[in-house]
């Protein structure tokens, strides 16, 4: 007997087991939308009457359920709407949990958010042990926490520590790790999934919640203590004013523990409150901005296999290592064996962290070939130049490699400061040159600026964006203007920090102000990390082109050999492991009240100038670029969005005050006044 609704397919086998298969129509992945939940509710109602021998839920797609349908979040406007949505979701999972027959869920691929919460409503969970299987509750990344019973059920099942770790970090687990903490009953090869389901239904083994030490954390006497530890851990990463969700989650668990009915109600209230809050709305906005960036590159237009990176410095080497990690065949060329050895060393470290299994690490290392002679050039589909910033050296290199490159291969430069027009002069076909501007550290910074000039062939830009998607980075098309987008916006902010330091503020005080705004790292520490010499050279280029004032303090430090983290001393001192010393700001340090405004105003002012000049094509892409390229406080939804939320008038007034008090560098960009270029 087969029965098919829009998203669910139902089949009853000879043993009387109902096999319920999710296959969302017209979607590449299953998301837990309202329609899908309502259909499931209907089916569960029928099953209550039908009394089958067992129920198995599985997916027909490569992924089980990738999470909630985030678009539905944006329709929720009031707390009541939110509560209604959550209550209905909870009711469906409760109904599933209440079925009299044994229920099993078979998990493959992504089983995230609401998908995992649905799975928690089943008696047994069996996961495919393939590397592609990931189980997690990443809600916290969207400014909320699990609401379909996940927060109420998970701590009881796997113990408080493991559950809170999953929900507070949003980190996902492999099938094997999930088995270890008791999240799934079996992690087996795909060929055994159905057999395992039948066996569980036949034998109905006792369901085991977390025991022993894992259960201890849920005890009413232990919870307050553990909650305090957890709050402290969270506080090291995010403050409650910016990111309330993790704190709310800890609170509701501390209050209700494994008392399911109470916890479910608390969960409903808490998520309803969070989901309509600014943080969640802005983080949802960031999610869609990320999707927007992803859509800038179409993988289908170009499927590169081989990448040749020229220049085995930190950037070149890390770009090469990243490409090999993402499955491409990579050669990395450098004349210096020592550089190449460091490339392999850093790559090995990255692969160990990301891939864990020795076999996978070996495969990735095999794909990354140090190539002193440049043997990989002729076969490469993508050639990335990442040598030192010198016009003549780059031009000479292009003259040498252009005739040896494969027909149709992409030639990209990672320059951060040289206009592509100038570099293109050395090429017989300048239309094939494009900028692929990665950020340091490559493995963490998702954004890649796709830099084009009027000479660049549209296909070249498309290929560059496609390549960026193939290596799972976010492409942002920008014009080849000085500093492109990210460096140009970042630099005035960094220089203002340097100026503040020169005025006598402690570096840690300046950084603390930026952190209070929600920046992931203070500007002084950031400058030290990037390297003060590099900051200076970028600043000088921008100063020439855009008239940005370079504080003498920066030159002074570079001259004194204080280059930042790499030299062990910049604004901060560093210990042998490269950890900065004395970054914690105490109370009562000298800090003028307009410190934070000065930092942020210069950034916002530059953002408006970039939008007005059309460095990127629209406001959302600009916000996306600044968030993913600089780490700009994601919970604020981007700089332009921030301006809009605070109000232009209010911020323009601040600009005027700063201009009066601190001089010309606070001259407001003309778009403050005209209101043109505001987000549409």
């Amino acid at each position, binding site marked *: 007997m087969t029965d098919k609704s829009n998203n669910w397919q139902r089949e009853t086998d000879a043993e009387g087991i109902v096999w319920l298969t999710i296959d969302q129509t017209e979607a590449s992945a299953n998301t837990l939308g309202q329609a899908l939940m309502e259909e499931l509710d209907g089916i569960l109602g029928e099953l209550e009457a039908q009394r089958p021998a067992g129920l198995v839920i599985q997916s027909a797609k490569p992924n089980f359920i990738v999470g909630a349908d985030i678009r539905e979040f944006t329709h929720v406007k009031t707390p009541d709407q939110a509560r209604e949505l959550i209550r209905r979701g909870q009711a469906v999972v409760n109904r599933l949990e209440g079925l009299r027959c044994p229920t099993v869920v078979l998990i493959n691929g992504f089983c995230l958010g609401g998908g995992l919460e649905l799975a928690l409503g089943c008696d047994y969970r069996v996961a495919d042990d393939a590397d592609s299987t990931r189980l997690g509750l990443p809600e916290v990344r969207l400014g909320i926490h699990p609401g379909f019973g996940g927060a109420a059920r998970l701590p009881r099942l796997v113990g408080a520590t493991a559950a809170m770790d999953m929900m507070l970090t949003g980190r996902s687990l492999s099938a094997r790790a999930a088995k270890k903490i008791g999240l799934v009953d079996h992690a087996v090869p795909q060929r055994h999934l159905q057999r395992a389901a039948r066996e569980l239904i036949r034998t109905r083994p006792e369901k085991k919640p977390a025991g022993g030490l894992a259960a201890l954390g849920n005890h009413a006497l232990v919870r307050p203590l553990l909650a305090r530890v957890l709050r402290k851990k969270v506080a090291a990463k995010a403050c409650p004013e910016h990111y309330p969700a993790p704190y709310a989650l800890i609170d509701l668990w501390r209050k209700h523990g494994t008392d399911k009915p109470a916890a479910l109600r608390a969960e409903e209230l808490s998520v309803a409150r969070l989901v309509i809050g600014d943080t969640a709305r802005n983080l949802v906005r960031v999610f869609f901005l990320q999707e927007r960036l992803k859509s800038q590159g179409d993988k289908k237009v170009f499927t590169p296999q081989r990448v040749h990176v020229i220049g085995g410095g930190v950037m070149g080497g890390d770009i090469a290592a990243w490409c090999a990690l993402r499955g491409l065949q990579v050669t990395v060329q450098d004349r210096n064996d020592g550089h*190449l050895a460091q490339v392999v060393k850093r790559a*090995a470290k990255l692969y160990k962290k990301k891939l864990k299994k020795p076999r996978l690490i070996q495969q990735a290392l095999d794909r990354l*070939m140090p190539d002193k002679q440049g043997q990989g050039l002729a076969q490469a589909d993508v050639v990335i130049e990442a040598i030192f910033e010198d016009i003549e050296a780059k031009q000479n290199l292009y003259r040498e490699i252009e005739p040896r490159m494969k027909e149709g291969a992409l030639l990209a430069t990672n320059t951060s400061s040289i206009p592509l027009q100038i570099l293109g002069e050395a090429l017989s076909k300048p239309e094939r040159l494009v900028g692929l501007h990665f950020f340091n550290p490559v493995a963490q910074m998702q954004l890649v600026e796709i830099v084009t000039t009027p000479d660049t062939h549209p296909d070249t830009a498309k290929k560059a964006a496609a390549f960026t998607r193939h290596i799972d980075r976010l492409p942002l098309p920008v014009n080849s203007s000085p500093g492109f987008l990210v460096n140009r916006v970042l630099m005035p902010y960094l220089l203002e920090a340097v100026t503040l330091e020169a005025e006598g503020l402690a570096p840690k005080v300046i950084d603390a102000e930026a952190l209070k705004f929600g920046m992931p790292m203070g500007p002084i520490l950031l400058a030290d990390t990037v390297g003060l010499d590099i900051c200076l050279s970028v600043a000088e280029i921008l100063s020439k082109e855009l008239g940005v004032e370079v504080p003498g303090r920066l030159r002074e430090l570079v001259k004194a050999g204080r280059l930042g983290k790499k030299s062990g001393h910049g604004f901060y001192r560093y210990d042998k492991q490269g950890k900065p010393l004395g970054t914690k700001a105490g109370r009562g340090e000298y800090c003028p009240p307009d410190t934070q405004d000065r930092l942020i105003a210069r950034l916002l002012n530059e953002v408006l100038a970039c939008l007005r000049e059309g460095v990127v094509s629209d406001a959302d892409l600009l916000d996306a670029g600044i968030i993913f390229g600089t780490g700009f406080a994601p919970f604020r939804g981007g700089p332009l969005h921030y301006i809009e939320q605070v109000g232009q008038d209010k911020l323009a007034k601040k600009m005027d005050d700063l201009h009066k008090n601190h001089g010309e560098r606070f001259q407001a960009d003309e778009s403050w006044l005209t209101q043109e270029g505001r987000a549409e």
Partner: protein
Amino acid sequence: MTDDEKKSKHPPQPRRVVHTVYVVDGARTPFLKARGRPGPFSAANLAVGAGRSLLARQSFEPGDIDEVILGCVMPGPDEANIARVAALRLGIRQEAPAWTVQRNCASGMQALDSAAQSIAHGRANLVLAGGVEAMSHAPVLLAEPMVAWLADWYKAKGLGARARVLRSLRPAYLKPVIALLRGLTDPVVGLSMGQTAEIIAHRFGIGREQMDAYAMRSHQRLAAAQDTGDLSEIETLYDTAGHYFGADDGLRRDTSMASLNKLRPVFDRPFGNVTAGNSAQVTDGAAMLLLASEQAVKKWRLPVLGRIVDSHWAGLDPTQMGLGPVHAMTPLLKRHKLKLDDIDSWEINEAFAAQVLANIEAWKDYHYCRNELHTALAMGELDQERLNVDGGGVSLGHPVGASGARIVLHLLRVLERTGARRGMASLCIGGGQGGAMLLERE
């Protein structure tokens, strides 16, 4: 079918087509001296290190390779059929078969000979062949009584039974078996390879001073080759700890007769002459060559490094295995009607200085040639200025599975450099064999 064949009463005889075998390119790793503990690279990593750059510079894709053959004497426990492991890691398509050959010290040359046969018989057009050995990773085994004891231990159930088994454990059981040392001892005649070198040195009256002088010259020649950049076949290796290895590191530029003279004999103690200084070093390394048919050379416009003309394998008394080269080279020269002087360049693997010198002496010795090599006259004197011109096993090491491929590759590079035509590569083989390969450049 021709008209003649149609008329004939007999069916046509199947004619064996023999295709020419070209060597088109090759690469090797630096040879890294074993320094007590396992070296930075496993055998498979060495093979990949040599093969990866070699394949990267070709005009064809790794997927165009028809077959992979590697010589290896002692692959690691995770490297069963190491040729297949290397092939798949190098991105060679899974449809291309790969196999590993073992003929002790000549395994690398055996791989080339097997590859040449595949091409000559028309079974393959493009073969990746060579040899690899990570001697520093040679397994250390448990002694058999220990293995038996462990079996009892796992079987024992309960405290009493376990206590009984525990009592039967003897300290002697714990002594490990060093597979490398066992491998370098002939199991039939019970002699170490070094002892066989002592035997033939004694037979031809080769003294300590001659051995040491030969060893010193090997180091000097390698040093000169490194300085002039004549070892371009070496591909730098990079480990994951930030180190790189660009040259054979067994070279001792400060070697002198005085320093060699200080060394004590290793094998025949205390009166022998063969020392660590005049023997091949224990090393890790890999050498890989690309062999191609005429068709493949044309199809991908491959540069030809040389041609494998013929090979020969010979057996002899295991106690005198070091004389294997003359036993393998003599028939090969005869078959092609060549005199010693017709060979422009020689590579005879330096297992021991004494052993290379003994081969030279054997060819000069009328009685040896007549009685053992069955020639009418003495073969004559091999010109040492044409022999191992850039050093050999004594100075750069002898990773047993790899050396046979290394000497063929280097011989071709020497012929290319000197514009010469004909070369001979040969090795002695533990267990009493010799192998030789004749090469030519057009």
